């Protein structure tokens, strides 16, 4: 797919999100959450390129969300909190990454899972600081110094999430095509060869890992400022699993996949929960099974195949 087609598709997608949020006001919240998760899933996609699955990336999302929650009482400014929280998550990603990039496959996945669960326990047990499972309510945050109405703040967060998604989408697309991204894909097929070409596979993976933590951090910060309530459940292993779920649902072949997957996931969740309150997880499970069995390229892969068929017809 050519670059201009992809830019066009991204803009159409962004316009659709805005139109949907305008037409169905309560979907504005859902869309913001979906994009925030999409950002974290973009990080999962990066690691998937190296053939590695992290079952613990909710750690970075939750870390940034709590950083925002604590920070909001000091500086309640969105445009300060968001970058600081994301950088904090990236820094944590660097420290954890130095350790976990030494491992591959199931060991990599499980170590990430273990570390995220340690963080979950810390959040849950240190009641005096974190209020345990009650979580922390966030005060309203200002936007560029302006105190906005709830309505305007909601729109501001959606637009912010949209801009971050477009920005990181473009960045990751370029990253994957660069030698850095191609070497990352080389980890999946022939890491030995990388080493014998003078490239450290660990460092290539570490760079991707830190980048993925940064994006998860951005997602977590947006999530915290949108829901205005953070709980340890953000760091629970099911939250990490959800990110991997969305990555597979959306498809790992393109930077569109995570966002497409996240929007589809959140919409399915909202509507399925309303229709069949007790069985919505089962519906999601079935959808995932069908995707794995019949559309290994995910929703994005299906969409692209349809587009290609129409063009050739």
């Amino acid at each position, binding site marked *: 797919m050519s670059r201009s087609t992809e830019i066009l598709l991204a803009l159409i997608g962004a316009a659709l999100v805005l139109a949907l949020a305008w037409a169905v006001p309560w979907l504005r919240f859902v869309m913001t959450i979906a994009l925030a998760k999409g950002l974290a899933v973009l990080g999962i996609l990066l690691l998937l390129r190296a053939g590695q699955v992290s079952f613990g990336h909710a750690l970075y999302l939750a870390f940034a969300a709590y950083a925002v929650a604590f920070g909001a009482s000091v500086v309640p400014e969105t445009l300060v909190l968001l970058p600081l929280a994301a950088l904090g998550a990236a820094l944590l990603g660097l420290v954890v990454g130095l350790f976990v990039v030494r491992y591959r496959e199931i060991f990599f996945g499980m170590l990430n899972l273990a570390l995220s669960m340690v963080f979950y326990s810390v959040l849950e047990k240190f009641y005096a600081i974190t209020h345990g499972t009650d979580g922390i309510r966030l005060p309203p945050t200002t936007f560029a110094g302006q105190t906005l109405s709830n309505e305007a703040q909601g729109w501001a967060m959606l637009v912010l999430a949209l801009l971050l998604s477009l920005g990181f989408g473009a960045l990751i697309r370029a990253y994957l095509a*660069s*030698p850095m991204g191609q070497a990352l*894909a080389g980890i999946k097929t*022939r890491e*030995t060869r990388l080493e014998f070409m*003078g490239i450290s596979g660990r460092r290539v993976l570490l760079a991707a890992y830190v980048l993925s933590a940064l994006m998860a951090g951005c997602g977590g910060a947006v999530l915290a400022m949108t829901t205005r309530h953070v709980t340890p459940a953000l760091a629970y292993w099911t939250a990490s699993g959800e990110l991997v779920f969305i990555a597979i649902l959306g498809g790992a072949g393109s930077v569109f996949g995570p966002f497409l997957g996240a929007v589809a996931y959140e919409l399915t969740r909202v509507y399925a929960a309303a229709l069949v309150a007790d069985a919505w997880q089962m519906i999601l499970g079935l959808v995932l099974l069908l995707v794995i069995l019949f559309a290994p390229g995910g929703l994005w892969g299906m969409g692209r195949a349809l587009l290609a068929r129409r063009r050739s017809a």
Partner: protein
Amino acid sequence: MSVLLSARGLRIAFGGLKAADGIDLDVMEGEFLAIIGPNGAGKTTFINMATGYLRPQAGSITYDGQPILGLKPRRIVKAGIARSFQLPQLFTEHTVLENAALAIAARAGPWAPLAPLLQRRFRAEAEELLDRFGLLPLADRRADALNEGARKLADIAMAVALKPRLLLMDEPTSGVASAEKMAVVETLTRVLRDSRVTAVFVEHDMEVVARFADRVAVWGQGKIMALGPPQQILNDPAVLRDVIGVAPVGDGAGTGKEGAHAAT
């Protein structure tokens, strides 16, 4: 001619098998040195030790006068020693062109963070490299869709892309169909002579050795049993008996691994 790589007193054993039991070997700048010997003798182990993949239990290896034992493989690569593999180690989900370009980018690094791999600079050099190896028509094929001969050449091309001073090749012609074998050797000789690379190669096909090598080292029971020009070594009755078996020079040792096996 000066000594480029020098091994002294190398010892390594795997369980009871002494792969190297006091190996002394000098590689001279500019030569093509063949290492022959029975399977399991320790020839590949030598390449693994010289590239930092395995650490000998005793002994030393110096490259260009500097000790290199204990360095990581990627440091040794940066110092100028590249290797190719008996089983080609290609990035199987990438095209041949991308494989070559990635090797070139690895040498040329550090990278501009967001410039594509197939930017003009790397693409042009990759195409030129593939052309020298006769692989240009296959540039857009995925690496896992090549036949064995082409994979072997692509594997060596990736090592040559690193512009090494010393190239270590592990059985460059094993698995190559016998009809293509000499063509592959001709291509290799031409490319390596052109780029003035010193080459060490492990080989089972005595015809290839006779055609390609300036000197031959015979590796057996963990020692260098004989060392000299091919016409002398390949006619040495002891070598013929112990290493080459009954196969005389010019037998054209069959195709693939099984054939190579029979030749030893």
